[in-house]
């Protein structure tokens, strides 16, 4: 069992330091960019060399690093971390025709740069790993963290999901049909009935260990799947709920619905088996679509199970429970990679 003790998030919304989800920032040009803080705790010479993914990843980690005396490592999930730096280096290669190049952006271009910078910044020689399996990069990081605390009782880790919008990944995914052609405002996000979503980014970081006492939340179960078949996903979801004996009457279904009409059947077929008591809520209008958006959903779950009153704009269907005791997250990335997470208070 994985217990979450602290959670920190840099997102397009006001989620860092002061949390305010009543006032929503809408997308601009179909992109939801993060609101970056001042990064007081990162040395200036380090900050200057960091790409955006590394910057928001390290930035979101800093408040947690201040709160702990011993940490046993960093477990990061990122699909595109380093993409922006890769492109800077690629441009150099082309511009100087493979001539004399400066290596800075090459070194920062590797996906493990965030975990590496965090270990450098803290002098931490513990476990250090970066999972990059696109839409399941964060989920694999969660599985890894759950195994680490099981294997090494009493240890604590920073677990994170981080991705940024770079011009290149936006362009490639846009050409591949994953972002909408028409411009979307915040209000019509879920009702466009067209293919594609809007781009998002963010860094959500968690302090995790195996201590139940005073935890914000626990990740009770996680399951990952690869499929393009809504029926198979529905059956797997049903099996997951049964196996975990989820009490649907005091549960929130946090749906990864993203305005893409091609993905909607997966979400609606999962909703069909949830009964009438459950609250159905959505979050992608807050963070946009990106491969590790499930990390934002997990951060949101930690808030909803504690102090945050569910904002009305998140609710798709009201349920009967006043105070939820568990949250079921289902996320679908590009019609191919799926995950279920059960979060309990």
């Amino acid at each position: 069992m994985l217990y979450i003790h602290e959670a920190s998030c840099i997102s397009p919304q006001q989620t860092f330091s002061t949390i305010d989800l009543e006032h929503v920032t809408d997308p601009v040009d179909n992109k939801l960019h993060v609101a970056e803080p001042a990064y007081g705790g990162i040395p200036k010479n380090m900050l200057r060399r960091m790409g955006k993914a590394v910057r928001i990843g390290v930035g979101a980690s800093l408040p947690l690093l201040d709160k702990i005396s011993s940490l046993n490592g960093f477990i990061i999930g990122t699909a595109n971390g380093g993409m922006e730096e890769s492109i800077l280096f690629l441009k150099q290669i082309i511009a100087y025709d493979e001539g004399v190049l400066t290596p800075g952006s090459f070194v920062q271009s590797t996906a493990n740069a965030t975990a590496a910078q965090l270990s450098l910044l803290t002098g931490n020689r513990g476990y250090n790993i970066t999972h990059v399996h696109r839409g399941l990069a964060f989920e694999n990081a969660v599985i890894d963290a759950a195994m680490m605390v099981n294997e090494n009782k009493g240890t604590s880790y920073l677990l994170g999901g981080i991705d940024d919008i770079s011009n290149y990944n936006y362009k490639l995914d846009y050409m591949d049909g994953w972002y909408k052609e028409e411009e979307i405002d915040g209000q019509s996000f879920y009702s466009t009935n067209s293919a594609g979503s809007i781009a998002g980014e963010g860094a959500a970081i968690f302090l995790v260990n195996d201590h139940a006492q005073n935890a914000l939340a626990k990740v009770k179960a996680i399951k990952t799947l690869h499929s393009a078949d809504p029926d198979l996903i529905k059956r797997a979801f049903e099996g997951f709920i049964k196996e975990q004996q989820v009490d649907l009457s005091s549960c929130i279904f946090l749906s990864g619905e993203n305005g893409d009409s091609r993905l909607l059947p997966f979400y609606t077929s999962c909703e069909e088996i949830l009964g009438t008591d459950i609250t159905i809520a959505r979050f992608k209008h807050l963070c946009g679509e990106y491969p590790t958006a499930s990390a934002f959903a997990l951060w949101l779950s930690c808030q909803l199970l504690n102090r945050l009153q569910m904002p009305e704009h998140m609710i798709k269907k009201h349920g009967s429970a006043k105070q939820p005791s568990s949250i079921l997250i289902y996320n679908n990335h590009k019609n191919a990679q799926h995950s279920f997470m059960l979060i309990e208070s």
Partner: protein
Amino acid sequence: MSRIFVTGVGIISAIGNSLNENHASLLNGKCGISYVNNFPSKYASELPFGAIQTGNDALKDKLGISNPSVTRTTLLAIHAANDAVEDAALTKDELTSADTAFIGATTVGGMCLTDELYRDANENYKESPYLSSYDCASVFLYLQEYYHLNGIIDTINTACSSSANAIMYGARLIKNGLAKRAIVGGADSLSKFTINGFNALHILSDEVCTPFDEGRKGLNLGEGAAFLVLEKEEDVAGKKIYAEVTGYHNTSDAFHPSSLSDNGEGPFLSMQGALRSAQLQPNDIDFINAHGTGTENNDEAESRAMIRIFNTPPPFASTKSNTGHTLGAAGAIESVYSILSIVNQEIYPGLHFTKPIQATGLEPVVVAKQIPVNHVMSNSFGFGGNCTSLIFSKA
């Protein structure tokens, strides 16, 4: 927790397209590092590389793949994974079962198509077959579909220690009961991107690399793929068993984004941790397949760390002098070589060595030898300080 055994291996590298070819090349001290033809980089004619001579068309023909979006990294991965799956005699049901995990590692992924990426993103080339082929995950998402896999699938990128971490992650999934078996390893292909990156860092040698030699001038990049099939003790009765995965440890050097600390603190801790997890003493290790890239920094730091752990280190060598540095594939390729040492009770030499590093005085093995081999350590250290050591033992 269960003991984990290796029941199948597959490999393709600059010294052979099969396990047998690689074994023969190691015994004969074959060096696969040379100049490459038909490679779209100006360094192709200036610097030597550990290239696989089989081209993409020949690989596609052999593997029966016609999908235009498949990259060289993916082709190499399938070539090696096919061999591993066949070697372990996994049935189709076992392969597609929800308790079969597949953990891949790569650092280059689809970025081997360096020029195509630049074109696609700058010219709005919507017809490109590669739009979803550039990231690291694309390699193993393709393999997931190719084999119809249904278990836990992951892609790991910790730079040059990536596939050592994939092996460790797969073993841990089995020990934690999240998989019954795991196919683990990595693949990387030569790319204009990495060639220019390592060149900008001034760590590419313009000659064939000389690991652990006083006069070493840097590394040679290589390409390749290797996969292992891991199964737990309860399931291996009657099967061919190559070796046991007895130890692993991952640690961060926490020193510098692209070089190791002088006294090799990260390497020291990863070797020490692997010994601890295998419940072995330093003098139990019969051979070390060193990371040994041939750079000024790595070989001296790794030597210092070996001396700190072992006092007098056991026989060691770096097979990067045969294959070049295959980055995300290196940990898996060198694990296969470590396993060959155990299976055949022999150790393989490092090539091109003439004079020990003055500061440390360590000499790698220079001729193949038959010796009793019970435990082999394999080291992999990557940019960002990612250090992982694995230990394989005679089953």
